[in-house]
């Protein structure tokens, strides 16, 4: 008895919905207002922390921050400290120093509703001051087996007061995991503008820029971040939606 009543109601609902659908539709505009949080977002680079623990030849730390200027434009920057040892067959070198990067992030992602995720392109100018210590090196000599002579210099030589300036393009995303907590990932393409060349040596690594290449001025990097948004004020995001409305 009860079953037949329920099925009867369902059938009626079904028909009524079809009946509604068949009615003439008209498009109207609906204006929605969402509150958008503006403020300072501060975070740390997780990949550098992880490498500090996992890799013997790397110690690094980076704090990043951005400040939202307009709907899609952020003032952004990173500050960090790195120590990296490069060890190959022929030389062993430790680079130590700090860096600062400043620039903008441009959000290219159209968010749904009140979400505040980012897929962004960033532009930075970076500067670093550092020192390099050539711990040991060998003299490359393809004929050294003749005199059975392997020239290795063990005494360290330190090059201090080195600087480097570069420009950087970032592409990345930041997603809100929980309220105000963001996870981010980005890739960085860099171009070294200038660096102080040590006498009779070269900069193998520039903190913030990462390793250099003999054949080009291009550098690369990546970042994995966890950041927290400190909301300072809120702004309305007005979304005009086209909505189907029945007459």
């Amino acid at each position: 008895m009860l079953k037949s009543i329920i099925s009867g109601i369902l059938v009626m609902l079904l028909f009524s919905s079809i009946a509604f659908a068949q009615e003439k539709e008209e498009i109207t505009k609906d204006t929605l207002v969402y509150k958008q949080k503006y403020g300072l977002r501060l975070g740390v680079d997780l990949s550098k922390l992880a490498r500090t623990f996992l890799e013997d030849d790397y110690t690094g730390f980076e704090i990043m921050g951005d400040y939202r200027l307009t709907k899609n434009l952020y003032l952004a920057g990173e500050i960090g400290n790195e120590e990296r040892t490069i060890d190959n067959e022929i030389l062993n070198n430790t680079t130590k120093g700090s860096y600062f990067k400043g620039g903008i992030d441009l959000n290219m992602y159209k968010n749904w509703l009140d979400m505040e995720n980012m897929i962004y392109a960033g532009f930075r100018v970076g500067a670093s001051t550092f020192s390099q210590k050539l711990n040991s090196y060998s003299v490359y000599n393809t004929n050294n087996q003749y005199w059975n002579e392997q020239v290795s210099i063990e005494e360290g030589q330190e090059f201090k007061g080195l600087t480097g300036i570069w420009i950087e393009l970032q592409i990345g995303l930041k997603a809100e995991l929980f309220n105000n907590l963001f996870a981010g990932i980005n890739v960085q393409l860099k171009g070294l503008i200038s660096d102080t060349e040590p006498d009779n040596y070269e900069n193998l690594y520039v903190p913030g820029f990462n390793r250099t290449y003999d054949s080009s001025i291009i550098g690369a990097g990546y970042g994995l971040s966890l950041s927290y948004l400190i909301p300072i004020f809120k702004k309305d995001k007005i979304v005009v939606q086209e909505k189907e409305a029945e007459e």
Partner: protein
Amino acid sequence: MKRLLKTKYHIVFLLSSIVIATSLSCERDDICAESTLTTPRLLIEFYDATSTDDLKNVPRLTLYGEGLVTDPTVDTDTTIVYNANANSAELPLIIGIEGETTTTRYIIEKDTNLRLDEDDTTQSNIDILEIAYVSELQYVSRACGYKSVFNELTVIFDNDGDTWISSIQVIETEINNENTVHVKIYH
């Protein structure tokens, strides 16, 4: 749904960029190419003492570092030239200590066949080449490290009263490549 697909595309793009960025870190910079000019050898050429512009073969020349072998009877890695008619040779130099005068000595033996044969009445003629210079270490690249160049080159030969070398002329006092001959030996 469309937007979700777009986001997926973005993520794929990001991940592939990371892969490219990390693969960049292992390229040709990390291998010292064989064509790279590193520590040069000393290039010597033998000229005719009477007609000084003409190269002249040294008959049955044997050339080796002093102290590495004595009176070699077979061709090994130690003999730079062994029992051959030659008018040039490339000599590896001992690098030694940077900034200090280092000496490398080579035995140059003429008419080696006379020593090797059964006849004891004829012998080869051995002269000793003494090469002195100051090493200087120069940075090449991260993969090749440093090389040594040699400055203030002087070359003398011991005068034992029975020398086949008549004179030595140092053409380049700074040896930093193997493009030109550094020392001419007249005989």
